[in-house]
């Protein structure tokens, strides 16, 4: 495998995971809507788009999307999409070590099964 494909995959996985972790952190600091009613959710969204972590996450996810477009021009889709399923593992590691979530054995087992399952489904 070529170096640029490996770098592209790393940017794809770390970009989407980093972006989602930044957004999760932002949403946790914004706090949940008081009620799940349109007015309260709109108020929540106003606070959310004013949060710096949200705007840290969005460009990281955009970067990941551009990496995906580049990768699809370099490598077969049957390699790129199943490999991107590794983001489930990367995301869980990030949730544990950056967000401080308690990832139990059952949750780890579920994540690994989902990761393999998504790779198989994407491979067709």
């Amino acid at each position, binding site marked *: 495998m070529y170096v640029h494909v490996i770098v592209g995959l790393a940017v794809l996985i770390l970009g989407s995971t980093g972006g989602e972790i930044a957004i999760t952190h932002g949403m946790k600091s914004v706090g949940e809507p008081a009620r*799940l009613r349109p007015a309260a959710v709109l108020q929540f969204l106003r606070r*959310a788009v004013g949060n710096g972590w949200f705007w840290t996450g969005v460009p990281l996810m955009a970067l990941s999307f551009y990496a995906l477009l580049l990768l699809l021009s370099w490598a077969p889709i049957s390699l790129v999409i199943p490999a991107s399923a590794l983001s489930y593992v990367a995301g869980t590691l990030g949730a544990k070590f950056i*967000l401080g979530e308690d990832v139990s054995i059952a*949750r780890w087992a*579920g994540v*690994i099964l989902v990761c*393999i*399952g998504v790779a*198989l489904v994407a491979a067709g």
Partner: protein
Amino acid sequence: MASAKRLRIKTLAMILAMVVCANAGDLLLKYGMAQIGAVELTAHGISQAFRLIVTSTTIWLAIFFLIGFMVSYMTVLSWADYSYVMPAGAFGYAALTFLAVVYLHESVSPRRWIGVALICVGVLLVGQTKPRTTEVPSEVAA
């Protein structure tokens, strides 16, 4: 505990909304772009495609669902763990396979069925865990 049960139901309902919106948005976008046809990569071709895209009801409906996905995703992450929402959302891949078989009569390879089975077991395992393991910040809880 009633509040723990409420948290689980609220989280699962929001993840379901997320999956439905993402799948509906993607399918409508694909359908809308197929109606427009292959875009010619010339100034004229692109401007014509742009006009067709902004006047397409299907594309606007797709955008509406994709915004719905983003809103439900942000909302659920305001209370639930990322390591809970992310794998549980993979249920969408399994749902898409079932929809493809039932409505589009697509044939699905054994490898893909094994993948669907693994996703279902994985989502059930993650679903058993507590949706939230971190502290609620005190100023938010108050």
